[in-house]
């Protein structure tokens, strides 16, 4: 089921085309990473989707309707935009209760949400005393007040420590995979979301450069085996005979594509070559990401 649908969205700020003909969709129960360098147009897309910024062209729908047309938006869509959007003099609990009142939700939801994001202890503290990580948690608590079916997060990992990022991953996975929530999460660091997302949408300079599953992006089975050896060239004929493709790495090492590490090890043993390094490389997502966003 399509939860978020963006079609031919365009928005300029003065001469700058922030978002230029962007289309993609997010299904219920999946986590989609919306990736791109800083200034690529991620935030503008999300703000158009949420009715905060008026698009020039195209449509952005949540649950089949534009956001401003939703009768009870917080029960359908939750959003985390900036970590700083709180009054520093208001307590976390009061912040949530203000939102509950305006959204027609029972005030008890405020305490439940605080519990859920691990802020129950800090409920009566003023937000001004909060760390960036605590603010992110409070923002997430605000977004989930109405138990929405769609969750939109803009750079939620900013300011989180490694433990916080791990917690966030678990939180999003539970929501999406167990509760069927559609999650759209933006980031400028691919590695940050790589372990969490099912699909990726990549944007650069306002234009879409890739959309698909994470596996499609990395290319299945394209993890090369890297071998560093003084006489590495002696391995080449035997491995090519087994269907490997060879690539020279900059530092004198060789990369063998299309074979697994065991096959390479066997050839090393057969050829009696002294090897100083033999490793199955991770496909370099960051490199792919950089390449895609540079080309745009």
């Amino acid at each position, binding site marked *: 089921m399509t939860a978020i649908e963006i079609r031919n969205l365009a928005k300029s*700020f003065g001469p700058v085309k922030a978002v230029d003909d962007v289309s993609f969709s997010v299904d219920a129960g999946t986590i989609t990473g919306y990736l791109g360098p800083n200034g690529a147009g991620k*935030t*503008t897309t999300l*703000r158009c989707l*949420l*009715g*905060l*910024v*008026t698009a020039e062209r195209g449509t952005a729908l949540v649950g089949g309707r534009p*956001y*401003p047309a*939703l009768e009870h*938006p*917080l029960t359908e*869509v939750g*959003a985390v*935009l*900036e970590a*700083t*959007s*709180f*009054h*520093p*003099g*208001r*307590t976390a609990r*009061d*912040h949530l*209760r*203000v*939102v509950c*009142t*305006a*959204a*027609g939700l029972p005030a008890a939801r405020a305490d439940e949400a605080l519990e859920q994001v691990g802020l129950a202890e800090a409920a009566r503290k003023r937000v001004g005393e909060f760390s960036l990580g605590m603010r992110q948690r409070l923002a997430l608590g*605000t977004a989930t007040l109405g138990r929405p079916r769609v969750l939109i997060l803009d750079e939620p990992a900013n300011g989180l420590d490694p433990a916080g990022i791990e917690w966030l991953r678990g939180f999003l996975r539970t929501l999406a995979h167990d509760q069927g929530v559609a999650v759209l999460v933006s980031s400028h660091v691919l590695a940050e979301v790589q372990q969490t997302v099912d699909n990726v949408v990549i944007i650069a300079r306002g234009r879409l450069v890739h959309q698909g599953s994470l596996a499609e992006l990395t290319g299945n089975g394209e993890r090369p085996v890297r071998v560093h050896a003084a006489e590495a060239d002696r391995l080449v004929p035997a491995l090519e005979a087994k269907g490997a493709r060879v690539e020279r790495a900059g530092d004198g090492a060789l990369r063998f594509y299309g074979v697994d590490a065991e096959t390479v090890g066997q050839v090393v043993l057969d050829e009696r070559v002294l090897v100083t390094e033999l490793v199955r490389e991770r496909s370099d997502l960051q490199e792919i990401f950089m390449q895609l966003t540079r080309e745009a």
Partner: protein
Amino acid sequence: MVALVRSELQKLFTTRLWWIMLLVMLLFTGITLAVTIGFAGVRTQGAPALPGRETLEFQQAAWTSGAGSSIFVMVLGIVMMTGEYRYQTITTTFLTTPRRGRVVTAKLVAGLLVGGLFGVAALLLTAAAVIPAVLISGGEVVLFGGGIPRIMLGVLATSALYALFGIGLGALVRNQIAAIVGAIVWVFVIEALFTAIPALQGVGKFTPSGAAQSLIAVRIDTGFGEADLLPAWAGATVLVAYALIFAVVASLTTVRRDIT
């Protein structure tokens, strides 16, 4: 809509500014009262600057003390609007209520209520000072005659409407410091000049504070001559017109603007 107004009031009462403003407003009113009571009937160069405490004129003058509360209510109104932009809480507000016109309406209603509350507080303080002062001087306390109900209503209405002015100005300017400085300069410099200098009073009587003064006008000669003011009904109309203009400004500037 009731829920939205409640939410706006909750926003105000869960931060500290409202009671700081209330205290400052009461202090300001208190000083005005102290001066009015202290100098009542005191003769300077032969004639008393203010009528004696046993007179009706004294009571009328004293009851206007709360009118000074309007600037504090206006600042509160400014902060109700600009605070949302300053701390970016406007994002959450509009995500919760994407129909922005409703948010603005809720803010205006909340502003009217809070402004009214400040007006009541100023009047209660006035009552607490004036009634004993009159009784001690052996005068007769007048509450329901001698133009005093009109003055009380004037103080109340001015206070309530100035909250709307603040919200409208805040929506227009959005920068909190600029809006507050602008309001203070307007009230204490521009309006003060236009309503005090006789040659400018023809224009000054149409400014918000000129119109407000017509509601609480007391005919006493303080040595400066009588001020040129509108009749009370016209003053009220002018004030309400300003409030409507500010409300429209608040809506128009808020409804379509991109929140980035």
